């Protein structure tokens, strides 16, 4: 009885833990740089965090179904390089190229999903393979260095800000994109039955299959959504960081770490979109904090690794404590 009662409570705590962590970290930032309390700087913080949050929210779909998507960083890199090479600075090409980028993203996600669902390759290997061939392709296409140019209207998606907006002061376009994408991804997990199917598949694929759930289709959909989210993140990153062949390096692990820190279960079957959101914001707040403290860039990776271990350890400990 008692452990039956404590379960829903534990799930609630898991979600709030991500939010709590974010608030603590942001409070530390404010302690060092009080002007982070100004709406303008907060908006700017959200703008810079937007790609990671979007990536994590897409990654969450794959994690819910019990997999990983290690290819999202490569998709970001590929998106930025391809956008620069295809538009080559021509503003008229922006929208057709964006449409093409999403098509390519859908294709990559479909490829990942088909390999996992039909060849039964573990997702960690399948997407590792995709990460490698996609990174190679981006390098070969660009000749190893950033080439081409992004037109102004393309970059504005990540960079443009409306000034003198009521309440918030400045309003970056990236924040609007973030809110719209999150609303869509929230709907996919919580607004329709798909999310419950994904949770069932991640929890027990065999039971799901025997109950009639189209397990393959559910997994493929998750990979497509993750790749499309990665394209979106790539477009935003290209906007404010410019063209680089390193644009997506490390983002795959950051997005997975974000979901886990937020309380999603690593092997599937438990998690909400808020796990991704609060987890990603916490991680980004941590990076900001480390920057403000003047720690070298290299330590970011070390600290991220430690945090990931602690987060997964805490999840395991929580579930053990429950049993």
């Amino acid at each position, binding site marked *: 009885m008692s452990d039956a*009662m404590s379960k829903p409570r534990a799930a609630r705590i898991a979600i709030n833990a991500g939010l709590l962590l974010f608030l603590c970290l942001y409070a530390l930032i404010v302690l060092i740089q009080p002007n982070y309390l100004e709406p303008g700087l907060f908006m700017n913080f959200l703008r810079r965090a937007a790609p990671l949050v979007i990536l994590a929210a897409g990654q969450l779909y794959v994690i819910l179904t019990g997999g990983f998507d290690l290819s999202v960083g490569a998709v970001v890199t590929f998106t930025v390089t391809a956008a620069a090479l295809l538009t080559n600075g021509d503003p008229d090409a922006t929208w057709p190229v964006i449409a093409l980028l999403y098509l390519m993203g859908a294709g990559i996600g479909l490829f990942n999903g088909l390999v996992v669902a039909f060849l039964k390759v573990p997702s960690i290997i399948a997407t590792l393979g995709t990460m490698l061939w996609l990174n190679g392709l981006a390098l070969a296409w660009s000749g190893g260095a950033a080439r081409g140019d992004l037109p102004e209207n393309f970059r504005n998606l990540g960079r443009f800000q409306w000034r003198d907006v009521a309440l918030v002061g400045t309003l970056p376009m990236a924040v609007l994109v973030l809110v719209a994408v999150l609303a869509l991804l929230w709907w996919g997990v919580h607004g*329709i039955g798909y*999310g419950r199917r994904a949770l069932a598949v991640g929890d027990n694929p065999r039971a799901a299959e025997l109950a009639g759930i189209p397990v393959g289709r559910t997994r493929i959909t998750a990979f497509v959504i993750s790749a499309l989210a990665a394209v979106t993140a790539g477009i935003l990153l290209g906007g404010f960081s410019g063209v680089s062949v390193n644009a997506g390096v490390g983002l795959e692990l950051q997005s997975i770490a974000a979901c886990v820190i937020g309380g999603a279960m690593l092997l599937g079957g438990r998690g909400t979109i808020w796990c991704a959101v609060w987890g990603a914001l916490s991680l980004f707040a941590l990076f900001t904090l480390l920057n403000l403290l003047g720690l070298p860039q290299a330590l970011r990776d070390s600290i991220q690794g430690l945090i990931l271990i602690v987060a997964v350890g805490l999840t395991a400990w929580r579930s053990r404590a429950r049993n």
Partner: protein
Amino acid sequence: MTPALDMRGICKAFPGVKALDDVSFDCRPGEVHAICGENGAGKSTLMKVLGGSYRPDAGEIRIDGAAMRFAHPRAAAMAGIAIIHQELSLLPHRSVTENIFMGHELVRPGFAGLLLDRGAMRARARVLLDRVGAQIDPDRSVAGLSIAQQQLVEIAKALLLDARILVLDEPTAALDDRDARQLLDLIRILRGQGVALVYISHRMPEVAAIADRVTVLKDGRLIWTRPQAEATIPAIVSAMVGRDLKDFYPAAPTAAPGETVLELDAVQAEGLPEISLTLRRGEILGVAGLEDSGKGQLARLLAGDLRPAGGTARLAGRPMPLGNPRRMIAAGLGYLPADRKREGLVLRQSVRDNAALALRAMRPAWARPAAGVFAPAMLDAGLKRMDVRAAHFGQEIGALSGGNQQKAIIARWLALDPAVLLFVEPTRGIDIAAKAAIYQTMREVADQGRGIVVVSSDLPELIGISDRVLVMHRGTIAGVLPRDPREEEIMQLSLGVSV
């Protein structure tokens, strides 16, 4: 005689529940002492205390008269206690010998103890396997062994450590009658060798056949401990449930069965050379057979888990595609697996989501998750009709008892209004009161014009519930018996002896 095992006044509380309340239990060398009780009565907790997994809040454990305090399961093992759990703990891809010697490998003298003495281990393993009556090649990998054989390997492993107190937790639950009888014979041999045996089982005839003494637990308290002569099956059952059990199996239907609802015509599949059968509306068709008789394959075939090599199937008058669960469910079939944890439940999801799973699979993915047929009130109504007991239906299903989980899965299928339900081992690991409720439900579901196939190793259950019993032998149907067959008739057919 000093008892080999003496547990006195054991108490163990978990937040909000008293799992064991002043329970005393002892077992002498050369004695089989059975523990009976419904799920949640405290049997497992008591054994976990004995095995060193839990530390008791109060009470003491004496082994051969000496007070013991186990800080760790390993300490209990070193004290001569071996517990064979329902879920076996062997490593599937290691050989039988490697499993038996896991953590206690023999090494060659010299070489700083770095070289394994495989020859000695193999020879020793052979002796131990002989002692448990298992004809298994010690070099085989465990993955290829039947459950019964794996269990014997577990017991051999316990004997290696010279276990003098052997706990068997539902050892026959996954075995068919022949293997179960063999295991009971082995238990008698071990008893003769002076091992103290603690036997936990839901199967009353076995308890009556093997136990020297019986202890009944209920709600964490000791009801009584009696010698065999005073522990009759009705006495045990009424002590377990706290009341007398009447109408354990539902009465036969009054109406004659209706039209044919399921038809297999010359279906061939792996392990099933050729099988034809019909099932009518309102009928409960039992499927009996020994472990390798093909009844498991037939169950897999009807669940969509086995691809057919030929033949046709019809369900409710339409052709049914075999080999694809989703399309078979769409055609009107529902499957309740024997292994609920592995094949039936999504354990981390709520009771409600588990009950909605099949419906969720059949409705579009973009249907709203908690509206219309998925509205909590609708799902809860289905669960309440099945009398599923939970703190609330938003609770994770993993916390429910086996009986309530099974009822929730029945609710899952009834939500789709299927024409045929396939039950495999419908009451495995389920306590007696819930069993009666599940049999009652099966009858009601059939009376509503559905067909039911029950595949079971539990003969009294099959006889009690089935309108016809189909007996499998070597992948074919050895015979079909009308309602109320005798156990001997079924056994003769399953052994391939003509009646």
